[in-house]
Every structure is written in structure tokens, then in C-alpha cells.
């Protein structure tokens, strides 16, 4: 069989077999609506499963179970927290249009929500990032205003993997009376994520980035009074998020959270070792490799490099022909011929951005996979360089 080496785990991960097993009955026999638990024993089975998943997720992020709100994924959680808090603080506390502080290199779920708020008359500051790919808390400090309702800075960037000083930034937000959100989609189950250590009021998680199913995530909400609902509907999730629970998805998220927590210490070490080996062996064989963003403050599964004189598009296609799946920008932008906004935000020019690839490892990545990439990629770079 043709060899497939999947190195695009920052885009999504395969559902773990144990996760799928726990999900399956909730598509078939256990199909009941959990909201019917009071009068239906099958509803109660679904309800118990949803609540168990809530406990497992809470245990992964160090929160109380009732602070975990199930959503349809990272994008919804990000939309909800930005729109729900800025609108509520503006109407009920500030009595004028509030202000949001975020960063230039956020995921589009944040950036486009911020632009939507801006269109409605709210004010937004996009903090610059700089070469390291790490937000300087002093820049956040300077961006703060008396009307700042929320600061939202991602825990780790999805393209370059750089980890942000969230606890320091949260302190600044709170000193100015603002709330703090972090998009922890790329860190949860990969590095320790604890809502109290981070000092955040809100935190977004998406199941499919750690071997759970797509289309399900959570928003950690420290205080339910701090935001308006985003999906208005029935009484689910304390009336804060309507819609019949995605029971199989939520069960899958819960199992992935449990497995993620168990596996984290070992995976952190293993993936760091594999990632560092990948970089050092590629650098030894290919000249002109530069790492995008800080190499130390980085999630273990991420490597983002630019390769001088190479266009990433033909390189990625040639890698795909050889069975290695990786990424240029992020998956959501794969069709843009424009360079990634993340790489340009950290000071790459267009040519540098277009010569960059992201290799992201995951639980399913083996040492053999990494060795295969180390064997194959240098030859493909040589092939492309031989045309120039």
C-alpha cells in the first residue's frame, strides 16, 4: 500500500478508535434527547453521557464542569465570546460602544468576528506581533482603554505554534477592568492548559485538534453573567446556547479529553523530540532553512520553516505525490494565493511567506513517519531548486 505520512495535524486529527467506540451507540440505540431526562430513562442515559463528557473536559482544563459550555467548535466559541461579551459590557456596564483588544495573527474565527464588531460600531485594536511570533504584554498594556471590554489573545498560534504569555496578559486585562479570553484550540491536550493558571475568563477548545470529532468544542465561561447567548434557542447549556445537544460529538469530545489528559506528559516529550529531530535533520540536508517564529515557546507538534528559493505550492504538491501531507498557510486558507496573514504579521515578506511550510505532528505520528519525511523532503527541494 502507498505510504501516507500525515503531517497536517494542526488542521485536523484522525478520530481515535476509542473515541469512535464511545460515540457509536449515541448515533443508534442511545439516540434520545438529553433534555428529556426527567421523564425518560433513555433521555437520562444521554444526559448522563453529556454530563460525564463535561466533567472530563473540565478536568482537562482545570475548570468546574458547569463552566464548560458545549458548542459546535472553535469557530463558534470564538464568535460567541467576542460578540457576547463586547455587546453585553457595552450595553450593561459601559453604556457606550466597548473596545476589544486582540492580535494581528489570530485565527480568522477571531479576526473576522472582530471585524464584524467593528462594522457594528465597536472599536478594535489589533496588536502587532513581531518576529518571535509572541505578543508583547507591554503592547497589550498600551492598547488598553477605559472602555476595553475584552482582551482576546490566542494561547498558541495555529500556523507557527508560538505560545503566548497569557497569564501576564490576563493580569493586564484585569487591572484595566476587562475580561480575558484565549483561543486554546492549538494547545488543549498538547501542553498543560489550566484556566486558573492562565487566569482567563473564557477559553475556546475544539475537539478535532486532539483526536476527537469535528463540529464540537467548548467555551469555558467563568461567569455566565459576563456574556449574552450567541445561539438563541431552547434552555440547553443554562439557556446560554440553544440547540439539541450533539450527543455523539460531545461524548467523543469527552473521551478525547480524557485520553488527551492521560497522554499529555508522554506526548509532549515524544513530539518535542520528533519535531526537533525533523528540524535538525532537514536543516543538515537543506541549506537556507529558517524557522518562522520562536523555537522554544512553541507547541511540541508544530514546525514552520521557510526554505529559501522554494515556492511552497509546488513543494507541497510534490510532497503529496510522495505521500507526505503538510500545509502552507492554514487549512482554511489553502486556496488563497495570498501569503499567510500570520507570516506577514511576524515580518515575513511575501516571498518568505510563500516559501514556508508547516509540518504538524500528532498522536498518530510515528518515528518512521518522521524518518520518511527526512528522507524524502530534501530530494524534492533539490528537484525544485534544480529548475531555477
Amino acid at each position, binding site marked *: 500500500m502507498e505510504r501516507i505520512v500525515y503531517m497536517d495535524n494542526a488542521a485536523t486529527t484522525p478520530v481515535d478508535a476509542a473515541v469512535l467506540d464511545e460515540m457509536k451507540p449515541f448515533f443508534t440505540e442511545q439516540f434520545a434527547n438529553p433534555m428529556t431526562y426527567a421523564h425518560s430513562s433513555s433521555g437520562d442515559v444521554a444526559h448522563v453521557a453529556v454530563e460525564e463528557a463535561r466533567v472530563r473536559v473540565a478536568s482537562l482544563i482545570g475548570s468546574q464542569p458547569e463552566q464548560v459550555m458545549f458548542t459546535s467548535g472553535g469557530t463558534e466559541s470564538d464568535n460567541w465570546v467576542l460578540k457576547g461579551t463586547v455587546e453585553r459590557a457595552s450595553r450593561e456596564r459601559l453604556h457606550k460602544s466597548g473596545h476589544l483588544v486582540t492580535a494581528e495573527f489570530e485565527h480568522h474565527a477571531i479576526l473576522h468576528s472582530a471585524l464584524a464588531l467593528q462594522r457594528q460600531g465597536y472599536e478594535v485594536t489589533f496588536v502587532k506581533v513581531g518576529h518571535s511570533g509572541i505578543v508583547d504584554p507591554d503592547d497589550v498594556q498600551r492598547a488598553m482603554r477605559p472602555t476595553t471590554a475584552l482582551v482576546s489573545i490566542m494561547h498558541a498560534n495555529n500556523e507557527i505554534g508560538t505560545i503566548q504569555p497569557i497569564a501576564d496578559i490576563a493580569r493586564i486585562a484585569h487591572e484595566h477592568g476587562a475580561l480575558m479570553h484565549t483561543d486554546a484550540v492549538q494547545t488543549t491536550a498538547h501542553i498543560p492548559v489550566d484556566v486558573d493558571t492562565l487566569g482567563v475568563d473564557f477559553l475556546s477548545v475544539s475537539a478535532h485538534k486532539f483526536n476527537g470529532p469535528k463540529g464540537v468544542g467548548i467555551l469555558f465561561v467563568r461567569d455566565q453573567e459576563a456574556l449574552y447567548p450567541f445561539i438563541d434557542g431552547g434552555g440547553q447549556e443554562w439557556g446560554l446556547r440553544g440547540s439539541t445537544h450533539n450527543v455523539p460529538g460531545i461524548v467523543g469530545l469527552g473521551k478525547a479529553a480524557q485520553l488527551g489528559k492521560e497522554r499529555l506528559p508522554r506526548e509532549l516529550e515524544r513530539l518535542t523530540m520528533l519535531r526537533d529531530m525533523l528540524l535538525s535533520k532537514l536543516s543538515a540536508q537543506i541549506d537556507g532553512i529558517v524557522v518562522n517564529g520562536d523555537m522554544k515557546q512553541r507547541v511540541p507538534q508544530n514546525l514552520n520553516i521557510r526554505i529559501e528559493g522554494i*515556492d511552497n505550492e509546488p513543494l507541497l504538491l510534490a510532497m503529496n505525490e510522495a505521500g507526505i501531507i503538510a500545509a502552507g498557510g492554514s487549512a482554511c486558507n489553502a486556496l488563497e494565493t495570498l501569503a499567510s496573514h500570520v507570516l506577514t504579521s511576524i515580518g515575513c515578506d511575501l516571498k518568505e511567506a510563500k*516559501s514556508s511550510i508547516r509540518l504538524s505532528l500528532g498522536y498518530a505520528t510515528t518515528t518512521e513517519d518522521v524518518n520518511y519525511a527526512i528522507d524524502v523532503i530534501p530530494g524534492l527541494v533539490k528537484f525544485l531548486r534544480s529548475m531555477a
Partner: protein
Amino acid sequence: MDKYSRATIREFMSPSNIGYIDDPSGMGHIADNADAVELTFFISVDAGHITDAKYRVAGCTALISTLSVLSKELPGKTIDEALALDMSYLSGVLDGLPESKWRCAGYAVQALHLAIEDYQSKGEATAG
């Protein structure tokens, strides 16, 4: 969704006619930093017909495969026939390039036109 045809991928994975022509009849050079493109196109012309075409390229997949196809089409053609090779024809040879890639692939045609202009200006110089 825009994606490349198998014909395009095959062409790009084993491109024809990469190289230089020593003492070419005409040469066209294009460099565009924003598109991360650098390209040199060489032609040999004899008795009004193109006899050889070669190129060096750093750029996207669409450009590499278009150059490969173009370089194979040119030998034997007159200058007018060469100028008639346009993107819709070349895209057809590749079983259809995504429209979003036509602009970048179009550098192949532009470079050929520059090489032809270069050839023609030399001709004028000799004639004059």
C-alpha cells in the same frame, strides 16, 4: 473547488526542457517578488521557425507545467504561430488549469513574448 488536474501534476513532476540555450536567438526574463516568480525563457529561431525552447524557473506549479507544455509546443512553429499560443490553449493541454492560476501561469506566455521581442529587436539591429 480549485484544484489541479492529474495532467498538470504529471507535467510538473517531470517537466520537459528545463535548461539554458547558449547563444539564444531571443531571451525573456521576468522577476516578480510578490508572486515569488523568477523565470528566464530562451528560444532558438532558424529560417523563421522556432527550433528550440528552454527555461529556468522558480514559481508555482501552474507556471512550471505551463512552461513545460509551451516549450514542447514551440519547436517547428513560426513566430506568428508561437504568438497565437495563449492561456486558454495551454490550459486545455493541461486538462484545464484552475482560473485562479491563470495569472501566474500567464508569466510563461509573457516570457515567451519577451523572448520573441528580444529576437525581433536583434533582427532589426542586424537589418539596420
